[in-house]
Structures are given as C-alpha cells and as structure tokens.
C-alpha cells in the first residue's frame, strides 16, 4: 500500500519534471516563432517598399520606343517627305523616347536594380546616345531644316542604341529572374524554418498533452490509492481501538477480580490486627496489610487509568471546604511520610477568600494524594510541603496546589516524559521505588478534565515542586461537606442495629461480619438473594448490606423483590460492590437501593453506613451530635462515657472494670516493650506496639490515648514521646480510678 503510494508519488513527480521541461521547450519554440514572425513582417515590409515601377517593363518599353523611333527615322530617310510622316510625329516619338529615358533614370526601381553597377553603366551609355541626338530633333521641332547627313548619323546612333537596349532587356530579364529565384528560395528557407518550428511546437504540445494525461491518470490513481489507504487506516484504527477497548475491559475485569480476593486479605489482616497476637505474628500481619494496601493502590491506579483512557473522567461538582480537604489529605499520608523519615508540612493562607469552592473533592484529593505519595516516595529524611494558594486575578478564581519535596529531583530531559503513560524517569526508578508510572498521567487527565493545568519544576538532587491549578468558583458554605467530621464521627459509638449481610463469599462474610460485630452490631448472614428474601420475610432488619454479584439471585434482583414485599419499603439497603461505575450506581438506584458503597469494606465505611442508618432509624440522636460538635477534650470524655455506657450495658459494671484493668496492664507491657526497643530505627516494632495500644484504647473508648498513639505512629518515636504517652496513661488511670 505504502509502496504503491510512493510509486504513484514518483510517477507524478517524474511527470511534473517532464512537464516543466516541455514547458521550457515550448516557450523556447514560441520565442523562435516570434522571431520568425518578426522576420516575416520585415520581409513583407520590404515587399511593400518594393511596390515600385517594374524595371523589366520600363526597360522593355524603352527598347520598344527606341525601335519605333529608329523605324520612323529609317523610313523618313529612305522615302523623305513622300513617306507621309509628319515631322511632328517624328519629334513626338523622340519626346516619348526621351520621357522613357527619364523614367529609366528617375523611376523607383528596386534598390538592387538601381545599385547594380553594370545596369548603371549600361543605362549611362544609353543615356549618352539618347541625349546625344537631342539637337536634330529640337531643330526639327522648331521647324528648322535638318541635314540628311545629320539624320543618317542619328539613324546610325539609334542602330547602336537598339543593340544596347536589347542587351539591357535581356540583362534585366536575367537579373529579375535571378532575383526572383533568390527571393523565392529565401522565402522557401523561411517557410521551411517556420514549418519545422511549428512542427516542433505541435510535437511539444502533443507531448505536453500526453504528459498531462499521464499525470492526471497518476493523480487519479494516487487519489484512489489514498482513499483506499484512508479506509484501511480507519479500519486498522478501529481494530486497534477495539483491541485497546478490549484491553481496557480486560484490565477492568482483572482489576475487579484481583480486588475481590485482596479485600478478603486486607480485611482479614485488619481483623487479625485487632486481636491480641504474638509479637512476631502481628508484624507479619501488618506487613500483609501494608503490602495489600500498596497492591490495592496499584490496582486502583491501573483501573483509574483504564477508565480515563476510555475517555470518561467523571467530575462531580460539589461544595468543598479547602482547608478541611487539605488537612484530611495530608493526614492520609502522614504514616507513609514518617516511614520515610519525612517531615510533612501544610502551608495554607490564614484566610481563604473562597473557603468553600465548587469542585470535585474526590478528584482533588486523588490528585493531591498522588502528588504527595510521589513526593514522599522519592524523598528520604526530607521535607514534603503541601501548599495551597488562591490565585485571584481579574477573571475567575483559581486554586493552586503545590507539593514540594527535598527529594531526588528530576533532570530537565526527563521532565517531558513525566506525564506520559507508563513512563518513569528511568528503569532504575521503577526497580527502586516501584509504582505503575500511571499516577501523573491520571493526574494530568483529571486536571485537564477540570479545565486546569499541571506542571513541575525540578532540580536534580535538590527536589521537585509539582503543582496544579484549576479554575474554581466559590460555593455557599452550607453546602460544604465537612470532611473533618469523619474523624470525629469515627470515634462516636454506634447504636446496635439488626443487620442482614448478603454475601456469597465466605471470607468476605467473615470479614464484614467480624467488623460489624466489632462495631457492636447484630449480624445475620445470607449467602445469596433468595436466602436474603426469606431472611427478610422471617425477621425485621434495620439495614441490609447487599452484595451485587451473587449466584442464584443477584443483589439488584433481590433488592427489587424485597422492595416489592409489604414491609420492604422502609429498610435501608446498601449495595456493596467493587464495580463503581456510573451504570452500576444507576442500576442500584433504579432497583430501589438506599445507598452504594465500593469495596473493599473497611471499618470506617461500615461505621459510616451504620451511622447514616442510625440517623434514619433514630434521627434525634444524630441530630444532637451534629448540632453541637463537641470540643476535643470533652469529645473524648463523651466518647468514653458513651462507650462505657455501652460496654457496661453489654458486659456489666464488673466486666467493664476488668476490661479497663486488662487494658492498662497491656498498656504497661507495651510501654515496657517500647522502652526496651530504644533504637528508633526499629520502626516496625514501634509502630506495631503503638497500633496495638491504639486499637486497645479505642476498644475501651479511651479516645485520647488512641489518638495519641496513632499520632505517634508517624515520625520518629523519641524518648520524649514515650514519656508523654506514659504520663497520659497515668493521668487517665488516675482520673478513672477517682
């Protein structure tokens, strides 16, 4: 195909060259013709000049007149006055000859004739004779007598003249003939030249036409080939596109397939962590969880990319509190930052002119998190700063988010490759730091979908600053979702609900049920849609957690059927699925589901769901929490009181006290262990111990201790911190004992 196109191109180019040559040749020929035309015109004008007296005719006339005069004179001499010839006739004849002589002398003959020396000589000789005999005729005209001898002399001279005139006639005739022949041959040459030139021109035009035809044919063929090529390309493109779509589909499916067992792993690990485990085992479980999380992140990234490559970047505009978003986002990476020994800094302006903006909080957080994760990943023992600024220019507002680090940096040559998919600065990077290399591509796509721009400034070895700017509009503060509330809510104890968990996967069942029980919930398990319906018919539930894909009867259909039951309207049904597409949401909504949660199932998510359901079941309680968000100190107290009340309700007063005692015993052991692992380098052990303390503290409702332990997990665990923790434990113990 390409070969064919190239061949066509060659043919056209060659034909063009030939055409040019032919054109040049034609122009040259035309010039030649023009010159020839000029020559012809010139010759014609000489012909016009030549409209003169006919030399041969004049000479002939002269000869004739001379003969007549001679005859007359001869007759007159022979017969005398008896001849009857009047003297007047004689003189008139001479006068006529004389006038003829004048003509020969003065008339405009052809130039060559006049200039011919021989003719000149001959005419001069004749002239002498004619003018030499003027006297006797003048005398005769005057009526005088002329002697016969004189007339005889005239007769003799005329005799000689006749010889001369005859010679002149012959000579002139010859000259005229020669001249005509020469002229004709000259004209002939010119004609031949013209014919040759015209012939060449015709040939040239013929070639031109031929060549143009050939060119046209080639052009048409090339056009057809191009068309065919375009069709072929289009087909290939469609095939490639189909292939690509299939790939994306495959990626999405695989991602989903991988995510499901991963959820199970992560959930199990999290559950295990909450149990009291031997130390070695706990570290192992933590490793499982951390690696699992990393793997999940990777898969999420790939899925995100597949989705974006498909062309759908969903941007959902909602009011967003900038400060809360920044704070919560940075919290999410605090652990990882401290693992790498990095100091996390948040630089926000004191006052935002637009504290609440209209944007997509999920996407904003996703980009910021990605940039922060990268910064942390490539920085060791440095500083990572998240800086948010408002660029309020004359036009619409603009939010600028900067993530600076003091990490390895990027050289200029590699910066261009940064935002390309699957590219990392170099292969050694991927070996050392891992990652898909998709993060920045995804960020770029999202930022562009939000009409913003993204960029980076970097110096190798000094660090990088990644930034993005998106145009934003201010939103009304009431509409803002307070992301800060989540953490507070997390600590709020939950009311026990009667929950039906519909899940086919045994491990997922175990995890979710474990979480729910841990959250103090009453759980019943159904293995598929049918079981769910029969369970619902026999019992009354506050909440149904419905898996989407199940054998026998899937979540959507089960929901429809439950909604169709007499009591099926009131219950909250939340879909649990790894498919988070808009279509799934729509399907769920249409089937009558109350809400939608993506897998993996985590404790906070479940807590959130339960809290929301609680609000519906008993709006009064949640309203009070929302209406007056407690201050931090009293919040912990309230938490403790609630927890205590709940636990006492569940275990009795003695049971709760025993629980408290065992907690403080455990805490003391942890403190001892923390002290013995004085080396701050053994981060993992310290983290594990702090995590254990956090979990234990949270389970008995000691929020402040849990929070402190959690906070100390990021950054170096200094002896100062250990002391602080010890003090806190003592203080709480005293307070509770009082």
């Amino acid at each position, binding site marked *: 195909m390409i070969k064919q196109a190239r061949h066509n191109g060659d043919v056209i180019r060659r034909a063009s060259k030939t055409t040019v040559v032919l054109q040049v040749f034609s122009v040259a020929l035309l010039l030649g013709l023009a010159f020839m035309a000029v020559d012809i015109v010139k010759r014609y004008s000489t012909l016009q000049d030549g*409209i003169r007296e006919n030399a041969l005719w004049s000479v002939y006339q002269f000869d004739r*007149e001379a003969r007549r005069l001679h005859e007359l004179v001869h007759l007159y001499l022979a017969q005398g006055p008896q001849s009857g010839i009047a003297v007047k006739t004689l003189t*008139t004849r001479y*006068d*006529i000859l004389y*006038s003829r002589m004048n003509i020969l002398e003065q*008339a*405009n003959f052809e130039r060559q004739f006049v200039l011919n020396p021989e003719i000149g000589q001959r005419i001069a000789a004749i002239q002498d004779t004619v003018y030499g005999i003027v006297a006797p005729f003048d005398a005769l005209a005057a009526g005088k007598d002329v002697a016969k001898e004189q007339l005889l002399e005239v007769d003799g001279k005329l005799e000689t003249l006749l010889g001369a005139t005859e010679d002149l006639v012959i000579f002139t005739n010859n000259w005229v003939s020669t001249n005509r022949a020469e002229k004709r041959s000259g004209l002939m040459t010119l004609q031949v030249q013209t014919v040759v030139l015209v012939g060449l021109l015709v040939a040239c035009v013929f070639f031109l036409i031929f060549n143009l035809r050939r060119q046209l044919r080639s052009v048409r063929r090339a056009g057809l080939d191009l068309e065919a090529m375009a069709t072929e390309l289009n087909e290939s493109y469609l095939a490639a596109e189909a292939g690509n779509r299939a790939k994306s589909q495959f990626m999405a499916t695989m991602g989903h397939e991988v995510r499901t067992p991963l959820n199970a792993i992560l959930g199990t690990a999290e559950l295990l962590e909450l149990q009291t485990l031997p130390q070695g085992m706990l570290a192992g479980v933590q490793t499982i969880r951390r690696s699992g999380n990393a793997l999940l992140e990777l898969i999420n990234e790939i899925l995100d990319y597949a989705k974006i490559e498909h062309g759908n970047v969903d941007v959902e505009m909602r009011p967003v509190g900038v400060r809360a978003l920044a704070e919560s986002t940075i919290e999410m990476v605090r652990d990882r930052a401290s693992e790498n020994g990095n100091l996390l800094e948040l630089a926000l302006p004191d006052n935002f002119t637009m504290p609440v903006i209209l944007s997509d909080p999920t996407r904003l957080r996703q980009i910021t998190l990605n940039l922060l994760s990268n910064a942390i990943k490539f920085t060791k023992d440095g500083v990572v700063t998240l800086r948010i600024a408002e660029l309020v220019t004359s036009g619409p507002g603009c939010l600028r988010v900067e993530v600076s680090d003091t990490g390895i940096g990027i050289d200029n040559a590699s910066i261009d490759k940064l935002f390309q998919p699957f590219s990392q600065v170099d292969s050694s990077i991927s070996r050392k730091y891992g990652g898909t290399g998709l993060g920045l591509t995804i960020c770029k796509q999202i930022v562009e979908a939000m009409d913003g721009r993204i960029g980076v400034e970097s110096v190798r070895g000094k660090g990088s600053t990644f930034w993005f700017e998106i145009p934003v509009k201010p939103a009304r503060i009431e509409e803002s979702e307070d992301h800060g509330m989540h953490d507070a809510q997390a600590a709020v104890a939950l009311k026990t609900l009667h929950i039906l968990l519909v899940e086919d996967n045994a491990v997922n069942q175990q995890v979710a049920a474990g979480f729910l029980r841990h959250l103090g919930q009453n759980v019943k398990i159904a293995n598929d849609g049918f079981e769910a319906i029969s369970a619902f018919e026999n019992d009354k539930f506050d909440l149904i957690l419905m898996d989407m894909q199940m054998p026998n009867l899937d979540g959507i259909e089960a929901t429809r059927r439950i909604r169709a039951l007499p009591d099926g309207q009131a219950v909250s049904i939340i879909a649990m699925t790894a498919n988070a597409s808009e279509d799934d949401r729509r399907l769920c909504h249409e089937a009558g589901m109350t809400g939608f949660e993506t897998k993996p199932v985590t404790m906070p998510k479940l807590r959130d769901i339960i809290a929301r359901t609680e609000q519906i079941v008993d709006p009064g309680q949640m309203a009070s929490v929302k209406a007056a968000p407690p201050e931090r100190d009293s919040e912990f107290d309230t938490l403790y009181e609630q927890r205590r009340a709940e636990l006492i309700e569940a275990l009795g007063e003695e049971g709760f006290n025993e629980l408290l005692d065992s907690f403080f015993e455990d805490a003391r052991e942890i403190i001892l262990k923390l002290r013995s692992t004085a080396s701050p380098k053994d981060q993992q052990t310290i983290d594990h111990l702090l995590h254990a303390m956090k979990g234990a503290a949270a389970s008995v409702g000691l929020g402040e201790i849990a929070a402190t332990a959690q906070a100390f997990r990021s950054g170096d665990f200094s002896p100062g911190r250990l002391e602080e923790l010890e003090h806190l434990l003592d203080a709480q113990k005293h307070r509770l004992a009082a």
Partner: protein
Amino acid sequence: MNALSKLTATILAVASFTIASPARALDKPTGDVILTVRGPDLKNANAGDTAQFDRDMLQALEKRTGAMETPWTSGKVEFSGPLLRAVLSAAGAHGQKLKIIALNDYSAEIPYEDATKLDTMLALTMNGKDMSVRDKGPLFLVYPFDLDPSLFNEKYFARSVWQIKEIEVSE
C-alpha cells in the same frame, strides 16, 4: 476623410454637375487638341461624335491639386489638373469602362468608378509647370495617392497612364 463622407461628397459633386451643366454642346477647341473623348453616345460631342479638348478647355473644368510621391518621379511632386469625372461630364459621357490611350498607343482599361468614386485627375501641370511629352505630358492620369495610400500599388500603377491622347468610354 472617411469612406462614407467621401462617397457623399462625390455623389453631391456629381449631382451638382448634372444640374449645373445641362446637356449643351461643347465649344469647339480653339488651340491644339490634346484630348479626344470617344463614346457610343456622347451628349456634348463637339467634333462629330467625339468630344475634343484643348488646354484652355481642360483648365476651365473643376480641378484638384495634390502633392504626392509616384514610382516614376523622384521626391514629392505637386500635380494639378481637371478631375477625370469633370472631363467626362463635360463630354456628356456615360458608361462602365474607360480605355485610356497614350501617345505611344499604350492603353489601360479602368472602371468608370475610378472617375466617379475617386478624385482621379488628368494632371496638366507638375510642380506648377506644364508637362511636355518628354515630361510624361501633355496629360497624366494621376490617382489620389495622397488621399488614399492604399491605392499605392501595382494595380493602380498600371492604370496610371501618361502622355494621354484619347479616352474611350464603353458600356
């Protein structure tokens, strides 16, 4: 002068002549006869059935003067003499063809229109002087080369008869 106006002028001139000179016999020539006009039915014949003219009679007719070059003279030459049509009109001639006959019996046949449509003259003088036989005299049929350069070609050269003695009019 364009062709149309020339034609109009000619027609007017011819018309005025016919009106101004009603059929009346020519006077007899008093001097030497230098031109004889013959024709089948000359209205103004003065010598038998021919009309004869001497120099004075010709001088009295409508004339024209024109300076021009000819193939038989050198340089620009001024010719003057009666218009051919004036002569023919004076003779009361009419016909289709004219035969101009010279002293040496050379003759040329010209269409009658050459007299009516062109200001053809029978030149009597050249550069103000009478023309002798030695100078192509006494009469020289001169076409108006000065008024119409397209006449300057061999066709009219052949018709330019000099040393004229007779004009024969025929149908």
